[in-house]
């Protein structure tokens, strides 16, 4: 199929592309939103990396910048009002932020794909899902209508939509929430991307459906040796599937660690407080920890360490200086002046 090799060749020919370089490496990303009420710093120097076959969780509450980061990586931010003002997004050594829009579009969908929280608004309600799926193949792979339809049915099978052949002509509203999410996954994986970004994919779903979808994602990732970035606020989901976690607060990654380490011994006060504030299915009778205060308005981020007004360990230095990323162990970093205290060392 000439269509495939053409595009693959084009992407491989991008200057700087090194197949041995890390799959995805985000460095010091800065994104601001210019609004009437001032400039909101949505992403403030965020960075992370992802290797093939790995699952990275971007964990944080609303307003921490995780979705904006993902959209910046995909290149789908609304500009204006959003402006990427700094940093690098390296896909195998190629800085995506410096690419032309056309090259960017090639990388999007073919190499890096994204799925969202609300499948209903991500799918066009006036076309059948078969049509939408087939269109991906027709446009990007130059397939004939018949071949595209066949591939579409195959994609639906891969995501375990039952009776795919019969349902290929159904419309999005005729599917349940979980099924729609599967369709969206099928569309995202249609062109065999190397990285899949899932932005709160199961937040709107029932817990039993959530479990199914997460299991499906894990399976597909394993089959394809894909890198998966999972964006969520749910610490339970993260514990089940992630290899590494990057915790975000006020636009920065405040802690990064392998999943087992972070739950057992968090190295940042925010992570620690967050873990202590969630009720557990298997525990009863704890007093839930409360993080005093409110998350900062992005137009007015506190000086020094953004978390200091709410932190139990805060001292004067926290107000004055932003903590650098201290490396505690290989693959473990934390941005706090008092890591030792937090770890209880």
């Amino acid at each position, binding site marked *: 199929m000439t269509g495939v090799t053409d595009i693959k060749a084009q992407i491989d020919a991008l200057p700087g592309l090194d197949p041995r370089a890390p799959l995805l490496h985000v460095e010091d990303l800065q994104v601001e939103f210019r609004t009437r009420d001032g400039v909101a710093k949505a992403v403030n120097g965020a960075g992370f990396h992802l290797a093939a076959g790995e699952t990275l969780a971007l964990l944080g509450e609303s307003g921490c910048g995780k979705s904006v980061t993902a959209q910046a990586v995909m290149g789908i931010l609304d500009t204006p009002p959003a402006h990427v003002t700094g940093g690098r997004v390296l896909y195998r050594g190629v800085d995506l932020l410096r690419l032309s829009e056309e090259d960017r579009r090639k990388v999007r969908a073919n190499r890096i794909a994204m799925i969202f929280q609300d499948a209903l608004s991500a799918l066009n309600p006036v076309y059948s899902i078969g049509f939408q799926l087939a269109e991906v193949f027709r446009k990007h792979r130059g397939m004939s209508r018949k071949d595209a339809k066949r591939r579409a049915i195959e994609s639906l099978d891969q995501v375990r939509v039952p009776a795919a052949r019969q349902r290929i002509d159904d419309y999005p509203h005729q599917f349940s929430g979980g099924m729609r999410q599967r369709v969206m996954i099928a569309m995202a994986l249609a062109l065999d991307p190397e990285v899949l970004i899932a932005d709160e994919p199961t937040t709107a779903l029932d817990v039993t459906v959530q479990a199914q979808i997460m299991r499906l994602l894990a399976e597909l990732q394993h089959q394809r040796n894909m890198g998966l970035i999972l964006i969520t606020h749910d610490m339970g989901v993260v514990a089940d599937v992630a290899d590494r976690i990057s915790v975000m607060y006020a636009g920065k990654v405040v802690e990064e660690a392998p999943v087992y380490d972070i739950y057992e011994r968090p190295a940042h006060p925010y992570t*620690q*407080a967050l873990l*202590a504030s969630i009720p557990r299915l298997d525990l009863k009778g704890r*007093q*839930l*920890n*409360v*993080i*005093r*205060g*409110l998350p900062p*308005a992005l137009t007015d981020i506190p000086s020094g360490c953004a978390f200091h007004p709410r932190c*139990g*360990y805060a001292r004067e230095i926290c107000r004055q200086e932003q903590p650098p990323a201290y490396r505690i162990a290989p693959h473990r970093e934390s941005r706090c002046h008092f890591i030792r205290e937090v770890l*209880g060392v």
Partner: protein
Amino acid sequence: MSDMNALAAETPTRQPAAPSGKSRSLAADAWHDLRRSKIFWAALVIIAVVLLMAIWPSLFTSADPHDCVLSRRHRGASGGAIFGYDFQGCDVYAKTVYGARYSIAVGVFSVLIAGVIGLTVGLSAGFFGGWLDALLSRFVDVMLGVPFLLGAIVLGKRLAADPGNSNGVLAVTLTLGILGWTTAARVMRSSVIMAKNQDYVAAARMVGAGPVRLIFRHILPNSMAPYTVVLTILLGINIASEATLSFLGVGLKGDAVSWGISISEATGYVRVAPGPLIWPSVFLAATVLAFIMLGDAVRDAFDPKLR
């Protein structure tokens, strides 16, 4: 972990409220936005000028619009008559200025009539639902099925035949009011239905609020904003409609002076003297546009975004 325990015991009291320091109602916030909108100010200025013309025409011209001397017929601009003279020798500028009065009056009062009827019907249909809604909605549908122009002509002629109606103002006002309330009622109805389904209305019902309190405290205040906007737009439309009706001869008559009449009269002579046609048209267009722009700006400012 001792700090964390201390944190756990503390329930945050005296939480600071988010962004603004003083109490600001939705109206105050809307005003804050409006103040910065150029469209709003432009529209307001135009409307203010026209209103002034309507109330105090002598501020703008000392000439008498009824002072028509045939010998001055179609003369160009001279002296105080900056727009020239029309086919009867009347001062076009004076006629335009005095015309504002009738045009605005018809506009305002017809919208008042339409507004009141629309509100009552829309509120009843939306709030009570059931068979009342079905009945009223079908009635509105039937009324909407009547073609505007046809209905206006028929109604206009019928009301014009009334002896108490000398210059046609009452007839036109009533006609436009009666034909205009249907759209307003529909908008009101959907606003009410939307407000009725809000959680805070359920909360009030749960505390034991009766229909009167629900309507006046909760539903009306939250449905009036879109309704008012529709009415301002209707105002612009009605002023234009009066011009149309007068143009067709079913509107104002007698010694009434309006833009519609001026335009109507001037059409026949446009090749000889375009002035008498152009100037009232410009004023008409500007006024209608101003009202519509005002409605737009107000609607945007009151938009219930989650602030």
